[in-house]
């Protein structure tokens, strides 16, 4: 196997034994990019590639292992543009906290950033200013979104492992569409300082990896209290690799009936049911439950998330950084800059978000949504009172074709139906590959746990993974 095809834990072993080097791994990744990137387009601004400074690294235990970063996580010296025209040329004068942690652990930040839906607005990576990423399993299909670039890069071995961000499913759904592992941690587990905000009360950075062990390692490195983030939780970070016991006997699993609705893809349903059977064979005890407010999750999300986004994106106005439209009058400058700098989906969400907060509509929309959010959270609290975890599909379908949904915003929003409640409730969830459709597209299994119980997620996911071979398959590129 080529170096770029290995997992992080395999490469860490080789680095430790001096069987390979940071340069060699990077070289292997660059070679892979040369070959498949023209087809996959997982990365952006590839013409600007700058070789990373390798002198400083290799102090920490990661020994110079490269990691791919989504374009909305600030990396000092590397452009960070959220794949939007309005942030073009932005070079942050600081590193996100997770980047700091990675560097101190000896990681090398891969010099290209991963493609994404502009400002994380999307479920397909088709809203990127740089054009879509293509699913390595079927180049006519989307990789999912908004962390489509990160997921595709890991799936195509153009990255060893990657970071994405998840506000309504943007790590888990692309992970499921690309047949890789994606975790959204508990809200507050990983610092948001340096993550360019979409919806502040929902955003979390999460790992996208080739297997569960890599996800456990990466989560352990980037988790932890950050005094620069008022919403980060001061709670010890356990050694997640210790959760990889391979034992789930007696595990109490809840299967929410609202996640197996009539509209879902029949093939996906069958594959998920098969996966649930697998878990039962491994000793899990399953039971049907109800999360009665599930149908309200998408409307609640699109009120809260767009409201927060409309405020978070107000700063993109051409004054201090990014694109500025020509005008000799300030208000015109604002209006043209934002009209020309934002894509269609961004304008849609900002307009909707501004509307739901505006005078006369706040109570009917925003305030109401905050109350329904409470009901959704209570649904989960109730289930976790009796069960260890919840199992569900990650997405109602496998990857759809590029262009199929992008003109129908509502249809696109509904593809988040199984992932969104998790962000609203603030709980952790992981997506792992659990099968393929007849057309050869991956299907993801989602496991949810109560707050700060990532250990349980890794245990269940790892056990399932080690008793199947889905994670070993690679796309033919």
């Amino acid at each position, binding site marked *: 196997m080529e170096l770029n095809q290995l997992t992080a834990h395999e490469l860490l072993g080789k680095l430790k034994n001096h069987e390979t080097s940071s340069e060699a791994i990077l070289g292997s990744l660059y070679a892979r990019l040369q070959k498949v990137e023209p087809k996959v387009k997982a990365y952006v601004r590839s013409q600007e590639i700058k070789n990373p400074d390798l002198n400083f690294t290799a102090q920490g235990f990661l020994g110079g292992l490269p990691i791919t970063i989504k374009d909305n996580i600030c990396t000092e010296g590397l452009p960070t543009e959220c794949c939007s025209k309005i942030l073009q040329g932005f070079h942050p004068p600081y590193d996100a906290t997770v980047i700091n942690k990675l560097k101190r652990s000896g990681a090398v930040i891969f010099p290209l950033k991963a493609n994404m839906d502009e400002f994380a607005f999307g479920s397909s990576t088709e809203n990127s200013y740089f054009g879509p990423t293509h699913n390595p399993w079927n180049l006519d299909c989307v990789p999912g979104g908004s962390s489509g670039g990160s997921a595709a890069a890991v799936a195509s071995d153009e990255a060893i492992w990657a970071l994405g961000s998840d506000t309504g499913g943007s790590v888990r759904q692309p992970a499921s569409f690309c047949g890789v592992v994606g975790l959204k941690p508990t809200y507050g587990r990983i610092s948001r300082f340096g993550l360019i905000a979409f*919806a*502040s009360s929902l955003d979390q950075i999460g790992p996208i990896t080739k297997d569960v062990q890599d996800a456990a390692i990466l989560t352990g490195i980037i988790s932890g209290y950050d005094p620069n983030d008022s919403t980060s939780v001061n709670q010890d970070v356990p050694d997640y690799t210790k959760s990889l016991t391979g034992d789930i006997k007696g595990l109490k699993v809840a299967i929410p009936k609202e996640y197996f609705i009539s509209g879902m893809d029949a093939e996906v349903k069958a594959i998920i049911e098969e996966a649930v059977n697998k878990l039962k064979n491994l000793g899990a005890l399953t039971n049907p439950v109800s999360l009665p407010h599930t149908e309200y999750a998408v409307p609640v999300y699109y009120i809260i998330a767009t409201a927060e986004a409309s405020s978070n994106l107000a700063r993109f106005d051409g004054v*201090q950084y990014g694109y500025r439209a020509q005008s000799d009058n300030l208000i015109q400058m604002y209006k043209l800059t934002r009209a020309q700098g934002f894509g269609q989906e961004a304008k849609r969400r900002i307009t909707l978000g501004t509307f739901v907060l*505006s005078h006369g509509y706040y109570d009917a929309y925003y305030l109401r949504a905050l109350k329904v959010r409470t009901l959704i959270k209570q649904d989960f609290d109730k289930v976790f009172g009796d069960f260890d975890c919840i199992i569900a599909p990650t997405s109602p379908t496998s990857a759809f074709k590029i262009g199929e949904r992008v003109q129908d915003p509502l249809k696109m929003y509904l593809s988040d139906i199984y992932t969104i409640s998790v962000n609203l409730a603030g709980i952790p969830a992981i997506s792992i590959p659990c099968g393929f459709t007849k057309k050869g597209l991956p299907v993801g299994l989602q496991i949810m746990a109560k707050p700060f119980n990532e250990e349980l997620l890794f245990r269940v996911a790892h056990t399932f993974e080690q008793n199947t071979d889905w994670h070993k398959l690679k796309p033919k590129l």
Partner: protein
Amino acid sequence: MKYQTVIGLEVHLQLNTKTKAFCGCSTDFGKAPNSNVCPVCLGFPGTLPVYNRQALNSAIKLALAFDCQIQEHTKFDRKNYFYPDLPKNYQISQFDLPLSRNGYLDIYTQDIPTPKRIGITRVHLEEDAGKLIHETEISLVDFNRTGIPLLEIVSEPDLNSPQEAFDYLTSLKSIIEYLDVSDCDMEKGSLRCDANISLRQQGAKELGVKTELKNMNSFKGVKDALTFEVERQTQLLERNQEMIQETRLWDDQKGVTVTMRTKEGAKDYRYFPDPDLTVFVIEQSMIAQIKAQLPELPQQKMRRFIKEYGLAEYDAKILVSSKSDAEFAESCIQDFPGKDKKEMVNWLIGPLLSEANSRKVKLHELNLKKNELINLIGFVQKQEISYLCAKNVLSQLIETGKSAQDLIQEGNLQQISNADALTQVIETVIEENAKSVSDFKAGKTNALMYLVGQVMKKSSGKANPKVVGELIKRRLN
């Protein structure tokens, strides 16, 4: 008066913390442009705020000093609007759960014995914006001031004259100085004031049309602007002209208010709870602790001075207006020998205050040794020097730093009380002032004062006026 003036004041106060509200940048005034800035206060993408503990303590301190009720659960809200001095295009402020409400401030207006209670609606937390410099074609932005912690202090519309508004501001400033939570310097911008004024028929229950006044740069400016407005609005009402709700700017040079172009309707700030900041729970124990640490406030001190030292209210008010002055004065009073402190008080209120005013310094800043002052007063009491002379000696004490004793001897200022020594001068004066002599004999007591005055003049103030008076009376009868 046909119309009643109704005024409410909105004061923005910069707290004197070392660092800004939400980041560790310095709050030092007068630094080079854009040098006290960081990614957080610049509102760079990805950054997050963390509130300054000292700012919260100072805010609670001030709220308690005005007897406000502290909100047990308080939070920050985003106030959304676009302006180049606002990097995030929203201000972190407070909307529906402000830190404190329902306090008051008593003001003492000249000639009116009882204080008037002015309600304080709320005191809440927010952050300052940057500074704009307008050139002809462009505006320049300096973000040094962005993020400095502010308190907004809103009064009830209980003020009924420009003078009361002025008194309110001076009382407010006095209390804030005592608390040492702000520099309160309108020139440096650490205290800013906007006013709301309306007129209504005497006895009317409804408030009249409100005019907002801005751009006053001093307490006097506030008073003058309000005085102008009362006149302007009275004229409009007399002529039955329509009053529109508007904002007007005070032009200090021209002494008029001018209308700002009326904006379209009320502003829609789309307030919502800031998701990047947590709720603040203000425990009773914390409130009690801060309350216990409050210094004696000006009005308490004033009442104590009246009770303990027998001061008149008017005199006490002057002495407590500045904390350092009050401390200096009290120290002098306490060290003054004997139970009767009236002499010392008179000297403080009279000659010392005069000296301070003419030298344009505060009482405590006078270059005066307390003991020398006490000695000087003692000399007057012992009749070794006349009051008139002593006032001159005081000047010299301040200027030279020499001892009172030395100055009296050097200047040969000892009071002449000896009858023999005075006879010659008295005779001369009687000779030169025949008219006054006959006036006195005719029963006009003023004539005696005049004759005594002449003797004082001829003796360079050294004659003992009481003795002189007696001697003249004896001589002429």
